[in-house]
């Protein structure tokens, strides 16, 4: 009975779809009428192969598990153009984040860069590690060389709060 994806023989999983809807806290996703505006403007489409309108349709049909285990949801660069311009206020961006959270919950594989970013924040409190800069005379300088103050490691209370926020998500 019902729908089958003949390319992969996958069946929809409506429970997973409900989970995504619960994470979104609204049913705007269901209103998507495939105007393709999100994909037309998608920054990641030009770099990678992210087609937000396909993700919207797949989630709507219930093919959530395939998406949650695919690399594609991690390619969104969160520029928020789709969120701004969606005529149905359906926000592919929020769907993408909900799919990522579902993946983390299932303890499936998360791309290394994301794990790195988490440990980076935990250790230094910074989303980007500070790097050496090269001057016009081609000398490599670090903060010390430029006489900038040292960046101290974050307080323990920060780490606790950060981990708690992650858990809650």
């Amino acid at each position, binding site marked *: 009975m019902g729908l089958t994806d003949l390319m992969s023989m996958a069946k929809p999983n409506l429970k997973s779809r409900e989970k995504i809807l619960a994470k979104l806290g609204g049913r705007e996703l269901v*209103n998507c*009428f*495939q*105007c*393709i*505006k*999100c*994909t*037309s*403007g*998608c920054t990641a*489409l*030009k770099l990678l192969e992210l*087609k937000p*309108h396909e993700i919207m349709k797949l989630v709507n049909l219930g093919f959530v598990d395939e998406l949650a285990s695919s690399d594609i949801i991690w390619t969104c660069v969160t520029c928020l*153009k*789709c969120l701004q*311009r969606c*005529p*149905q*206020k359906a926000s592919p961006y929020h769907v993408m984040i909900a799919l990522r959270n579902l993946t983390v919950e299932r303890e499936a594989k998360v791309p290394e860069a994301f794990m790195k970013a988490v440990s980076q924040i935990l250790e230094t409190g910074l989303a980007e590690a500070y790097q050496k800069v090269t001057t016009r005379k081609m000398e490599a300088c670090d903060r010390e060389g430029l006489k900038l103050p040292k960046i101290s490691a974050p307080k323990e209370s920060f780490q606790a709060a950060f981990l708690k926020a992650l858990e809650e998500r």
Partner: protein
Amino acid sequence: MTRIGVYVCHCGLNIAGVVDVEKVADYAKGLPDVVVARHYSYMCSERGQRMIQDDINAHKLDRIIIATCSPRMHEETFRKAVAEAGLNPYLVEIVNLREHVSWPHVHEPEKATEKAKTLVRMGVARAKLLEPLEKRKVSVEKDVLVVGGGIAGIQASLDLANAGFKVYLVEKAPSIGGRMAQLDKTFPTLDCSACILTPKMVDAAKHPNVTLLTNSEVADVKGFVGNYEVTVAKKPRYVDETKCVGCELCVSVCPVKVPDKFNENLTQTRAICVYSSHAVPKVAMINPNHCLRLRTKKKEVCGKCLQVCETKAIDFEQKPQKIKLKVGGVVVAVGSDVFDASEMAEFGYGRFKNVISNIEFERISDASGPTGGKIVSPQSGQAPKVIVFIQCVGSRDKRFHEYCCRVGCMVTLKQAVLAREKLGDDMAVYVCYIDLRSFGKGYEEFYGRARDLDVNFVAGVPSEIHGAPDGSLYFDVFDKGTNKLLEIRADLVVLANGLVPSADIARINELFHASRSADGFLLEAHPKLRPLESSTAGIFLAGACQAPKDIPDTVAQASGAAAKLVDLLSSGEIELEPLKAVVDEDLCSGCRICESVCPFLAIEMKSKKTDGEEKLRAEVIEEMCQGCGACSSACPTGAVQMKHYTEKQVLVQVQAACAEAEDKGGS
């Protein structure tokens, strides 16, 4: 002792599919004073009505309760049926088992049946206290008012005038014609808009039964159905309409340039101008915001128009006029506005000269427009090599307007065909769409014609438009058909802007008490069965003020509204519902609260002699009272009672609702 008949309707499965109608009828049989209780598949059918009539005669019934759909649907039907059997029609009580029970409680049939029983019990309790009432008859004015001189207003006026009614046609602009006058060709037949509209404009102006009031607005409305008193404010033209011949000599000498509204501000006209080349009446008008003499209020300033005018028509002394009219009914046909795409930053309307709206395209394509009908890119003035149309701008968009504009698709198809026909094969036309809707008669065939003419359809809309330094535009669009991201470079982008409620709609709503729907347009009395009437009796709706509409639908609705008005006024008198307020003078303390809450100004305070003392007492003006009940609920002494909804009749229902179900009918 009353003898009550209760009739439970199945409404097919609409009610019986949820509510156990047999149980409800059985329950009703046990209620006090109920003589007959039956259930039947369709009470509103001929057989159902006859069943009630037969019972009235056989069982000497004097109260009838019908548990069926909403009274808005069939109360009138059942009142007529019992009247035929000799019973006063106001002794019928409708209990709503469909909208109030079976539809909202579709998933809980047992509770629904219990609720149905309670509602029937309440109906029985109330029915005992119903009093026979007679409809009121009032005479009506035979003149009518049409507000708005677009194609809807013109059509309604002509139909009413031909039916023998005297019509006052009020138009805000200096000329009638409205939005249709701005269009080039019309879909799906491509007849020229002016060719089919102008003769109608002239007919309306020349018709002996039509009084044209252009440059005028309705300022005040008083009264009620059949007897409205309307004040129209006529703004000064500063040109005598009876003398001006429309030669436009004055326009050629006027030194002040003003954006031309008729041409969507694409060109300039002068401070004195004739509204458009086929304006009716073809009379000049001075724009007081721009005319040098009117702005400075000095007699020695300018006056060039005065010197050249051969008929001495120019009159700087004209004053605003108030015209009082007595009319029996009104057709509201104030039309709609076009969505302003500058609200939508991503398409760059207003920022890029070569991004234009569909109504601007009409003016550019029109032979009487700013380019003489040559389609050009505004920036270069050259014929475009690539034109792109973008659909659903401002409509089907929850950020702006959620509804479909109903004309955007066909307007674009027509403009795409016009572009191809005028510019030849050496150019490309693309249409970026979400869904293409060509639903009307001959519309799908027209869509085929556009495809025949090599109009390219891209299933997808762009996210944003970029401008190149040379004025050309480029954007990415993902096409569902090819699954490819396409880049389109164009020298003209036309936005299919939707229709939005007119800027005046709030004022119209206030003046005529005509309600608005959630989308901002005027609300019809019933979405299917009363599409031509507003929520206020005697006020009818025509055209795009009720919802976005194309020309065929607008004309159909206008003729329909006119026919409705003829139907209302033709007999010279109308029947009013007897549901009105009455004042018990002994209880009235003269506090004037009712006077202050009455929205229809139907309460008058009169001083009366009681026990040799002069006292102020409220009095209801019957013709004005619409039976809303505001006065009755506000009255602190209970002196004002609503006929058919007296305090007792309402309270007994509340008591019956609170009584236990086993109690069979309560107190």
